[in-house]
């Protein structure tokens, strides 16, 4: 299965969301973002893109026999 290119507009949005959620001054020492149950868009650029890849593999796997990578 071919990997679809990421549209520049998607990359822009993901970069911005990554900044808003993962950068900026941190005023708290113990806070973390819980991964469990969180919508993928909130997890930041790296994980979002990895997850999109995984989802596509999963979709391809259901028709092509490949195992999804998570």
């Amino acid at each position, binding site marked *: 299965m071919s990997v679809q290119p990421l549209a520049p507009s998607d990359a822009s949005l993901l970069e911005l969301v990554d*900044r808003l959620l993962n950068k900026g001054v941190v005023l708290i020492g113990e806070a973390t973002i819980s991964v469990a149950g969180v919508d993928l868009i909130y997890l930041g650029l790296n994980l979002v893109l990895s997850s999109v890849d995984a989802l596509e593999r999963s979709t391809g796997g259901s028709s092509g026999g490949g195992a999804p990578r998570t």
Partner: protein
Amino acid sequence: MRLIAHAITPAPRPRVAVSGLRGRPLEWLESAGLGIWSTRWDTAEPLAREDVLDHHRVVEGICAATPCLPVRFGTAFADAAAARATLDRRSDALRDALARVSGRCEIAVTLLWREPSGGSAPRPPVAEATGPGRRFLDERRTRWSASEARRRRAAELVERLVTTLAVEPALVWHEICSSERVAVSLAVLSPTDQAADRIASLRRVLAGLSDVTGVVNGPWPPYTFAGIDESGGVSAGSATRLPGWPPA
């Protein structure tokens, strides 16, 4: 009721032409020569995904008026006293960070691979007589080689961008090969009055790259460069992530 923090700026209160989240009043709390901007929020009211980008609108509005440290989205204070106590405890570190970003903005560059990993690379011939173990190792070696080649290429691209920007390394943050599609994610802290020229220079360089698609964003508030020295630690409970955020 809690306070969702947006940004920290020097006192006295500057005039800003922006409302808080969802158009609600923007509040200013001052202490130690600093002020924190926030939106009053009902504890029971969940934040929505639209609020993430609305936070960006608020921070941009504040940064347009005064030097500003963006606060990470989702940070909430129980009350005004907790917000002021945080300013008191970290005033030196916050002032240092404000001095670092004053008059500067963030430019973001993302380089996306045009081809999937190994998509155009020639596959090594595999002898029909080889067994499954040999084939597994050959395939693994091919993937590793392709991955290393991409990392080297991404590092070259970073070097070229930094050279183009002609800035000291401390003003650049970058990450390479963070996913199969992203070659480089880079941020530079630029003088605001030079941002347009730098964006134009970056776009010229990116237009000449054949193996990646370049995306330049900004100028943005200095999100990536707003970090402060953690030694000024804030006691537990003075600020927390808003309950219900991130949403399930």
